[in-house]
């Protein structure tokens, strides 16, 4: 039993997935709610902590694996996805979660997103989107609104923001959701569903930065603004509708499952396993591998 491993109980509780490491987050940071929602989702899933790998990049948000009892890996800025893919392909048995921030995920790490999605590797990718660089103290983020003034856009940003929901829909993601700690039960539920989805799942979380964030992104304002997709009658199987809703990112705050492919496509991992199985019988013993270099072989 290690310091990080929960006490074995029959049915795991969210508390079993919380480590005793004290978060460095500011009081009131939205990420506290995110870690709670994740541990609740993990409790509902019921896999033991040692079968879970939780990978992140760098940022306030990326500190999150350390606050859980899973095997955590707080990697480098923007590269959580490639590392997580290696983990999942090396050991398909693991439940692999990935956490990121808006900068980590869509600025420096933006180039990896399309590829993990088109490969459809079975990961759950959680982005804590606070429209700002928290850890480095308030610079422009790719999801910051045009015109926004920050420490690096003193006269207002000149760029259109990234639209994470629309981008991943365009990349062909099969599971796309959005949540906020302002709706904790809803958030825990979509994370759970994302984990259960057999394939790559993307979850954007509007997790406010109380220190550098805008007023209208705080939990209080979110509680007023948010609309559940369910409540507006959105059908998660409707890809075109999902794309339309995704366009409203930055304008409307929808929560819930935007898109869930009713016929989940084959994952990359399935392809790998089939290939391994079909080729296995052709393997010469490892120690005879050099024989192939005998001329005429």
């Amino acid at each position: 039993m290690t310091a990080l491993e929960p006490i074995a109980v029959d049915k795991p509780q969210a508390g079993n997935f919380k480590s005793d490491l004290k978060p460095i987050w500011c009081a009131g940071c939205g990420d506290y709610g995110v870690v709670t929602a994740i541990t609740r989702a993990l409790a509902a899933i019921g896999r033991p902590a040692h079968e879970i790998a939780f990978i992140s990049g760098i940022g306030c948000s990326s500190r999150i694996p350390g606050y859980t009892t899973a095997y955590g890996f707080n990697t480098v800025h923007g590269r959580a996805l490639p590392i997580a893919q290696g983990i999942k392909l090396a050991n398909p048995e693991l439940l692999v979660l990935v956490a990121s921030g808006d900068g980590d995920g869509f600025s420096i790490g933006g180039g990896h997103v399309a590829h993990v999605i088109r490969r459809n590797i079975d990961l759950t990718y959680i982005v804590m989107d606070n429209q700002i660089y928290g850890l480095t103290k308030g610079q422009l983020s790719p999801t910051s609104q045009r015109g926004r003034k920050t420490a690096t856009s003193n006269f207002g940003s000149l760029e259109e923001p990234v639209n994470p929901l629309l981008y991943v829909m365009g990349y062909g993601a099969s599971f796309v959701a959005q949540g906020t700690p302002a709706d904790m039960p809803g958030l825990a539920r979509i994370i759970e569903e994302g984990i259960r989805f057999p394939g790559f799942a993307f979850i954007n979380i509007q997790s406010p930065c109380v220190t550098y964030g805008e007023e209208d992104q705080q939990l209080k304002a979110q509680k007023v603004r948010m609309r559940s997709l369910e409540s507006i009658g959105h059908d998660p199987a409707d890809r075109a509708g999902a794309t339309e809703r995704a366009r409203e990112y930055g304008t409307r705050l929808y929560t819930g499952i935007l898109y869930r492919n009713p016929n989940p496509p084959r994952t990359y991992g399935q392809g790998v396993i089939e290939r391994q199985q079909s080729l296995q019988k052709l393997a010469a013993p490892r120690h005879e591998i050099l024989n192939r270099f005998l001329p005429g072989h």
Partner: protein
Amino acid sequence: MSQDLIIGIAGAGGDGVVSAGESLITAAALEGYHGIMTKSFGSQIRGGEASCRVRLATEPVFNPNGPLDVAVALNWEDFRRFGSELPVESATIVIYDSNTGVAPDKLPLDGVTPRVVFSVPITEMAQQHAGTEMAKNVVVIGLLAGWFGIGRESMPAGIRKKFAKKGAAVVEGNARAFQAGLDFAAAHPLSQEHQLAAPHTGRKAKLLTDGNDMCAAAAIFAGCTFFSGYPITPSTEIMQFLDREIWKYGGTVLQAEDEIAGIGAVVGASFAGKKALTATSGPGMSLKTEMLGLASIAELPLVCVNVQRGGPSTGMPTKAEQADLFQAAFSAHGDCLRPILAPMSVGDMFGAIVDAFNLAEEFQTPVIVLSDQEISQRKETVEPIDTSAFRLVERKRPTEGDLAQYARFKLTESGISPISHPGMIGGNYLASGIEHNELGRPTASGAMHARMNEKRFRKFNPLQNRRDLFLVEGDPDAPVGLVSWGSVAGVAREALRLARAEGLQVKLLVPKLLYPVAEPVYRDFFASVRCGLFIEQSYQGQLYRLVRMFVDLPALVEPFARSGSNPFQPVEVLERLRKLAPPLHGNGDRHPAEKVAD
């Protein structure tokens, strides 16, 4: 009879020059000869000029360079394009296609008049016997088999196998073309002295492969089950081989979107407990810098092969250079150390890769293997390898006792802390690129940082005494020392052989472990040395400088270094040695190097 034969062939892209060379060296390998074959192309992607050099010998050979004994020109324009890569001397036997219209005494070779010249109607023979010009290269191997006695028996079978898919007519046509070559040679006999003697090491077949394929095969042998990388010349064949093979062993190849993602996936696979490999060349190495640092601080094993090409930047993608050593040692920011290994031949690649995986696992570290364009792409005969002599190392796993209070980064005496992986009950920990304490938790304590740095360096101390990772040849007490590494070490070995044959007192050190610098090994080697050379294919003489950082070299030891794509010749090293080394039985009173140095 001849003991050593260097044959150069050049022609247009479609002439099958390289395939002729491959037939030759394959036949030689089957018959137990030693050989090396290199190829070279113009800058066109396809369809430009092509050439190959095949060196065949009765004893082991270590480098493909040197003037040609035999030159084959399918046309003179293309042959001349290769310039100094195919050096013709007056002793070279020249064979060329008569349809070039050139008279044997008017060869377009600047200032050289070869003594033996054969104008052969190669195109005509191909047309006549196989009904197609495509068989020109088969005529050429017939000629060479006839004149030099290589593959007279095995080639026909090879031809049959190669063309089998194209139907009986093609097979027969090519067989006739080969026979025509043989017949022509028989009709125009060459003095017996040119025939290659029987191989000294017996008629037993050798392995035949190139450095990239050997690298991939060795990785599979070492237990590697994960590869991720991004294509780049001249390393791509490693990924290509593994993509054909690794699945059979329950492994996976992931072509990543770039080199960062490639090594990222490898870091992940290693975290998950697997032996994992990535391979690239210079530009890709530059992109992997950040991940190498992460693997160092997170103490995760992995192997990263850099097949060096000419640099800096995109540089010269198809040329060999040894100028990425500094980078391999020092690219990542912060204080960190990762071992660097370098094979000196295709055969040596096997051990280098196995060692690399072993060091990675033992020391929980990234290991860099520096190959180069020459080793990676030259075909070489290799004495069959007894794989049972190789021990495979696995990373140190936590015992139950360790897991009772698991501290992933425990400050142990050896500096090596037992490592768990996801799936192992009780081994849960937080890995990170952030400085951490023994439990893996982030720390801002300077004292802890100092202790962790110290641990991460101390664990490599055993490498100071890994003498098995060094080759020492020659006279142990010689006052003249050569040091060389990678493919260039082959030139140094041949130069040593020549020098000792002349009675010069010389010795050679070839480090296969380039970094950390094993100080005792160099100190011992240089104990008897008064002067010497570091022979390197880099402008800066990077190994020379690297060793100086840690070892006080004798004042008269200096770099003999130059930019890549300017291959060294054993004879030019010999010439330098003649100036430096006293004869084996000289009185040695006045050391010639003392003159050289002023």
